[in-house]
C-alpha cells in the first residue's frame, strides 16, 4: 500500500540523515506573508531525541542512493543497505502536514548524490520552490548544497532556503583524501565562496532596494566529523576559524564520529562516540564567538587538545591564574565574562545590578551563580578568595570534587576502557 511505502521510506531516509547533527532553525525572520502558512524566528525544539538532541526540523535525505563512496558515510555506494528515494511531492506533503500539526519548524533536506550534482540539486531546489510558491510556506528551509552543482542552481536555492550548508566532513585535507579520495576540499570551497558573495551582495542591495529578495537569510553553515581521522582539537579549531572568517559561516557543527563500519581507516564498530570531546569543541566555539576569547588562548602548540574533564574556560583560567581574582564590583564586563562559572547572562546582570550597590556573594548566588566554581576566581564585597594562590592542579581538584559534571556518567563509561 502507498501508505506503507511512505512509512518505510521515511524510516530509511530519516535514519540516513540523522548523522547530520545540525537541526537549528534560527537566524531567519521570515514573516507569514498574506495569511499563508508559517514563519521563522521562534527557533523552537518540538521534541528531543533520546540522546537529548533538539528536533526542530524534519531532517531527511531526498535519497540515500549515492555515486560516491566516502568511508565515513552510511550512504556510501559500497555499503549494502536498503535504498529509497522520495518523490518531490512526497517531501512537500510531509513537510506541510507535519508543520500544520506543530511537529516541526520546517525542513532540513539533504541528499545522496544520484546521477550527478546538478540532477540532485535541481530536485532539492524544486521542493523548496514548491513549498514557497505553491503552499505559501514561510517556515524554515535548510538545504544541503551538493558540491559541484551549478551556480544557477545555488542561486535559486538561496532564493527559497533560509540556510544553505556545504559539509566539510573531515577537518583536514589529508584526512579527507584518505577517507573520501573522490572528493577534495576545493569542491567545497567553491560553492561556499559563491554563496558568501551572494549573501553579501544581497545584503548590500537590500540597503538600497528594499524589494530585493532574500538570499539565504540565515546564512550558511557546515559540519565536520570529529574523531574519524586522528586530528587534534587545534587542527579542528583552526579549520573552523578559517571558515568562520573567510566564508562568514553562521555556524560550524561538530559531529562526533559514530562508528558505522569496520573499515581499517576508521575507528572500529563498537568504539565510543566522542560526545564529550564534541561538547568541549562546542564550548570552545562559543568562547570564541561570544566571550571574546582568541583561539590560541584555548588551544595552541603546547595544548593542542581540549581537556575532557573540565570545560575549556576553566582550563584557560587555570593556565592563567595571574589574571585572577577578578573584582566583581569594579572589573570591566570583558573580564567578568571570562570568570569560570559566569556566563554571558550572569555577567550582564552583574554589571546592571552593581550600579545599585556593591554586590556580595549572596547576591551572586541569587543571580544563579554557583559559589563553588567562582570562589577561586573572584573577589566581591565581604569576600576575599582565600585559595586563589594554590597551584592550579589543586584548585582543579577542589572544583571537580565538589561538582557533578553533566557528563560524569558518560565520562566514567569511557574511562573504564583504560
Amino acid at each position, binding site marked *: 500500500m502507498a501508505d506503507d511505502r511512505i512509512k518505510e521510506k521515511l524510516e530509511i531516509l530519516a535514519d540516513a540523515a540523522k548523522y547530520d547533527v545540525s537541526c537549528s532553525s534560527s537566524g531567519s525572520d521570515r514573516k507569514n506573508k498574506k495569511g499563508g502558512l508559517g514563519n521563522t524566528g521562534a527557533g523552537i525544539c518540538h521534541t528531543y531525541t533520546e540522546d537529548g538532541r533538539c528536533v526542530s526540523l524534519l531532517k531527511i535525505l531526498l535519497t540515500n542512493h549515492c555515486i560516491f563512496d566516502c568511508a565515513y558515510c552510511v550512504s556510501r555506494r559500497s555499503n549494502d543497505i536498503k535504498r529509497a528515494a522520495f518523490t518531490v511531492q512526497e517531501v512537500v506533503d510531509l513537510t506541510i502536514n507535519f508543520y500544520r500539526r506543530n511537529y516541526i519548524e520546517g525542513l532540513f533536506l539533504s541528499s545522496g548524490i544520484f546521477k550527478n550534482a546538478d540532477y540532485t540539486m535541481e530536485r532539492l531546489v524544486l521542493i523548496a520552490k514548491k513549498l514557497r510558491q505553491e503552499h505559501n510556506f514561510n517556515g524554515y528551509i535548510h538545504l544541503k548544497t551538493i558540491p559541484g552543482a551549478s551556480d544557477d542552481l545555488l542561486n535559486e536555492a538561496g532564493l527559497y532556503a533560509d540556510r544553505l550548508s556545504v559539509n566539510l566532513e573531515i577537518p583536514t585535507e589529508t584526512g579527507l583524501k584518505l577517507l573520501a579520495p573522490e572528493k577534495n576540499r576545493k569542491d567545497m570551497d567553491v560553492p561556499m565562496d559563491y554563496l558568501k558573495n551572494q549573501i553579501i551582495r544581497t545584503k548590500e542591495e537590500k540597503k538600497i532596494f528594499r524589494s530585493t529578495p532574500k538570499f539565504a537569510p540565515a546564512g550558511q553553515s557546515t559540519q565536520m566529523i570529529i574523531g574519524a581521522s586522528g586530528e587534534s582539537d587545534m587542527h579542528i579549531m583552526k579549520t573552523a576559524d578559517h571558515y568562520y572568517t573567510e566564508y562568514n559561516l553562521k555556524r560550524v557543527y561538530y559531529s562526533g564520529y559514530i562508528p558505522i563500519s569496520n573499515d581499517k581507516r576508521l575507528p572500529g564498530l563498537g568504539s565510543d562516540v566522542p560526545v564529550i570531546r564534541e561538547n568541549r569543541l562546542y564550548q570552545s566555539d562559543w568562547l570564541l564567538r561570544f566571550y571574546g576569547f582568541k583561539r590560541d588562548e584555548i588551544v595552541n602548540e603546547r595544548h593542542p587538545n581540549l581537556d575532557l574533564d573540565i570545560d575549556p574556560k576553566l582550563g584557560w583560567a587555570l593556565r592563567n591564574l595571574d589574571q585572577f581574582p577578578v573584582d566583581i564590583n569594579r572589573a570591566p564586563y570583558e573580564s567578568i565574562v571570562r570568570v569560570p562559572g559566569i556566563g554571558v547572562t550572569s555577567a550582564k546582570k552583574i554589571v546592571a545590578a552593581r550600579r*545599585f550597590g556593591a554586590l556580595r556573594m549572596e547576591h551572586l548566588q541569587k543571580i544563579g551563580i554557583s559559589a563553588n566554581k567562582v570562589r577561586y576566581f573572584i573577589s566581591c564585597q565581604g569576600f576575599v578568595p582565600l585559595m586563589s594562590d594554590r597551584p592550579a592542579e589543586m584548585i582543579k581538584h577542589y572544583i571537580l570534587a565538589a561538582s557533578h559534571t553533566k557528563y560524569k556518567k558518560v565520562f566514567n563509561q569511557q574511562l573504564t576502557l583504560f
Partner: protein
Amino acid sequence: MQQRTTLSYDGSWVGLLTAIFEVYEYKFDAASIQQMAQADQGDLFGARHEVHTDHAKAERVKKGVINRVGKKDFQELYAAYLSELQGVEDLILRLVRNYLAPDGVGLSQNYGHEDVLRIKQINKSVSRERHRFKAFVRFRKLSDELFFAKIDPDFNILPLIIPHFRDRYADQSWVIYDIKRDYGAYYNQSEVVEIHLSDLPSEREIMERGEDKEALYDELWRRYFRSTNITERKNTKLHLQHVPKRYWKYLNEKFDL
C-alpha cells in the same frame, strides 16, 4: 499597628489592576489583594474591601506603570499574574508601589532587590512554560478542517502563546484548549475568540472525527522520531531534562514507547 485591609477581586487581570488602583484611591497602607474565593478564608480580624472590576481604573494603573518603567516591566507583572502562584497579587502590588515611588525608575534592573529578583524568577518559570507549550502543542486535524489541541499547563500560559499560533497558522482554523482551566482559544482564520466547551470532545470522538489521513501522519511522525534517534548516543538524563515526563501525554511521538 495599622489595620490591614484585604481587597477581594474577581480573579481577572483587569480586576487585579483595579484593586491596585483602589489601594491608592482609598489610601490603604497595609493592604493585601486576594481572589474572592480565597479572601473569604483570609484574615478574620482585618478590614474587607470588595473590588468591582473597572476598565478605566485598570487602564490608569497600566499607563502609570508603563510610563514609569516601560512596557517590558509591565509585561513581567502580567506574566507573574498568570503564574497563579499563592500571594502573587501582593508581590505585584508591592512592585507597582516601588516602581511608582520617586526612585522607582530603573529599579527592575536591581537584582539585589528581593521582590525584583522574585518577579524575575517567576517570569523565568512562566516563560519556560510558555516556550514549552509553543513547542509541545500537537494539533490533530478533525474532519471539519479544524486543528485541535489540548493543553494542561502548570501556569495559565494560553494567553501568552496565542499571538504565536495566530501568526504562524494564519490559514488554518485551530483550537487550543486548556483542560485544567476549562477554556480555550478558537481561531477562525480572522480572529481569536475565547471558548468554553462544556463537553470537550473525548479522545474517542477526536479519533473518530479525525480526518482520514490523521492516523497516517500521526504514525509517520512517531516513526520519524524513532528513526532520527542515534542509539549510540543515548542520554536519558539529558532527554528527560528537556522533555519532562509530565508533558509526555501530549506528545504523540512519546506514546507507546
